[in-house]
């Protein structure tokens, strides 16, 4: 089981969290012309690397805050957790 350190609450069991996917994907800016390709990139295309991965997690059974985690997708080692704006 993963042990995830919520930046707001501290170390908690994986069971308290929901996964939010790749944390490096940025939504295209609102109210601007965007190409189909940009939208495709945002909605569907993912690198899904083997190794270090920055991802979003949601402390859904806790403080309900979203935050980012840098985790190894092979060993599940968590290197750091940080607030989205950091």
């Amino acid at each position, binding site marked *: *089981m*993963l042990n995830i350190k919520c930046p707001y609450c501290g170390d908690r069991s*994986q*069971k308290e969290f*929901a*996964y*939010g*996917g*790749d944390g490096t994907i940025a939504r295209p800016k609102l109210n601007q012309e965007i190409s*189909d*390709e940009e*939208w*495709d*990139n945002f*909605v*569907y*295309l*993912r*690198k*899904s*690397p*083997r190794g270090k*991965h920055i*991802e979003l997690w949601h402390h859904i059974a806790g403080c309900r805050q979203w935050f980012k985690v840098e*985790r190894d*997708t*092979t*060993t*599940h080692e968590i290197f750091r957790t940080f607030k989205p704006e950091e």
Partner: protein
Amino acid sequence: MQKYSVFSLIKNAFSNHEKWDLAWKDPTPKKEYDVVIIGGGGHGLATAYYLAKEHQITNVAVIEKGWIGGGNIGRNTTIIRSNFMYDDNARFNEFGMNLWRNMSQELNFNVMFSPRGIINLAHSDAQMNAYARRGNSMRLNGIDAVLLNREEVKKIIPMADFSEDVRYPIFGGLAQPSAGTARHDAVAWGYARQADSMGVDIIQNCEVTGFDIEAGKITGLRTSRGDIKSKKIGLCVAGSTNVLAEKLNMTLPIETHLLQACVSEPVKPVLDGVVTFGAGHFYISQSDKGEMVMGGDLDGYNSYAQKGNLPTIQHVLTGGVALFPFLSRLKMLRTWGGIMDMSMDGSPIIDKTHIDGLYLNCGWCYGGFKSVPSSGWTFAHTIAQDRVHELNEGFSLNRFSKGYLLDEKGLGTKTWIS
């Protein structure tokens, strides 16, 4: 190639089974092949077999990093079905069902295909309506579908919890009687043995380290056992698709996730078909050895670990015990995991790519095993003819950007949505 039969079995008994031919050779890679298939799993081996058999292309290599049959073909829960609603999925998988029915004879290898039926359970009137619609769509594509009411389901699985006060009471279900199971390892070995006998080189312990691309055309690949030239390369690497895509500077609508399964200790025959309990994230069948074979959802976050975490197994078995209370008395024999190439709409991709001569076969999500023959057959056609077959037209790589998703059941990478 030595033909397997009762006579060859008796003959070899006299020499204590020490003089059987090797089922396939262990060749050194040649400098050049007409086609190289990366990935010696079910899909890759089937592709090589159909390239040789249907298209007479025998100068083919199958490159495998580990050993053949060591990936998802040896890790799945062996379910074979074609109970799909959308035409593209239904036709493709029903074509595969016909290949399954003749596979043991065709490969001269007993794959133990056992059409024992599958039931998807329904727990509300709305779900019964949805299943009636899916069943009708299946029938329009020539697939057997039977809508079962509560009493009919009870006759088939009397040991399920049919009490009124459960969270998900059983209203009925949708059955496909011709669905079934097969012995997964035998599928890989059967295809490997026949492909090898027609001249395909199966090269194990050979890792792909890079690709050679000139002016938008693939010209070869670099491996841990030397460079290999080839004008046509097919990728059949399931959970490792993104790793190779990175070497090709491609980004795909695929995420790699971990899916677990488990088996109980063997018990006497109790369940003769496959039962899926979608509401409880659980499905089950009983192997010929008597083990209850069970699985459920993804672990839920990107993973290349090939082994899972306990919370998912607990979650799956909680659903299992809710449906079949007797499971609580069984010991779990083992659990394992495999890494899945989860596509964004839950349907696969079998297509050409923007690189000339590079072909892509991925996105099998939860259901790669049943598609081994149909995927191999259509991928071989796509590679040999350099164009997709009508059976895999819908599985295009650009369907995401074009908006033609094949979102059969709301599956895919985003398990937290469905």
